[in-house]
């Protein structure tokens, strides 16, 4: 059986891990990032940058890799106050996109979460599992995008090849 999907290995993005009380983190980052999402496991976006609310007092900022240096200069991770934490984690995560009419079928094999539109809308983003690995899952145009720990990227690419063959 084959599925009407394509997948793309997108590689890495500029990623910054932010932790701390929301007021303190917001005060430090100012307008360098989009507004902080008010719902857990949701994202906001502005000027190509995205902010994911991924855990209690925990966010992930994402931007195209070419913006990494500029964003780091704005976020100043090494200078931030001691009650918050900002760490550049761009190298840790490789992103994949699964798109096409049957993208949902592939994700239904890989992921225990109900990713139908009614349960997981366009701005939802969350850690869950993909092929048994911890993965950051969100929607993208015509499908689903997810990030996995980069050392598993070759393995996930092979899983996707087999699932879409």
């Amino acid at each position, binding site marked *: 059986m084959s599925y009407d999907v394509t997948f793309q290995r997108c590689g890495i993005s500029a990623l910054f891990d932010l932790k701390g009380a929301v007021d303190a983190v917001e005060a430090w980052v100012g307008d360098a990032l989009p507004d902080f999402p008010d719902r*857990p*496991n949701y994202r906001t976006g502005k000027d190509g940058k995205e902010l994911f609310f*991924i*855990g*209690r007092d*925990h966010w992930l900022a994402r931007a195209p890799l070419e913006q990494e240096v500029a964003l780091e200069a704005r976020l100043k991770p090494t200078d931030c106050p001691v009650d918050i934490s900002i760490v550049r984690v761009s190298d840790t995560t490789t992103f994949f996109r699964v798109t096409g009419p049957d993208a949902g079928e592939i994700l239904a094999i890989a992921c*225990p*979460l109900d990713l139908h539109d009614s349960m997981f809308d366009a701005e939802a983003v*969350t*850690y*869950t*599992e993909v092929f*048994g*690995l*911890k993965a950051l899952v969100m929607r993208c145009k015509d499908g689903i995008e997810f990030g996995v720990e980069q050392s598993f990227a070759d393995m996930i690419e092979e899983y996707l090849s087999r699932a879409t063959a």
Partner: protein
Amino acid sequence: MLLIPCPFCGKRNESEFIYGGPVGADRPDPNAATDQEWVEYLTVMPNPLGPVQENWWHARGCGDWFTIWRDTRTHDIVEAPDGTK
């Protein structure tokens, strides 16, 4: 398959979680406890027939640690019994 209610994420598949053991008694003051009380605290785990409070870690999710009550007779996640915190 259990659906476990994470306080941050809502109900999620049990495969996203790691079990952290039952919630034990509060640590007694080692200077005030008898040897028997101390040994009980260190070695005797709650193992009731009925509701037990358990620690769970949303390891492949938001990373939160939290507790639930699970009924060992039915495997159902239940409300905390009256009078517990």
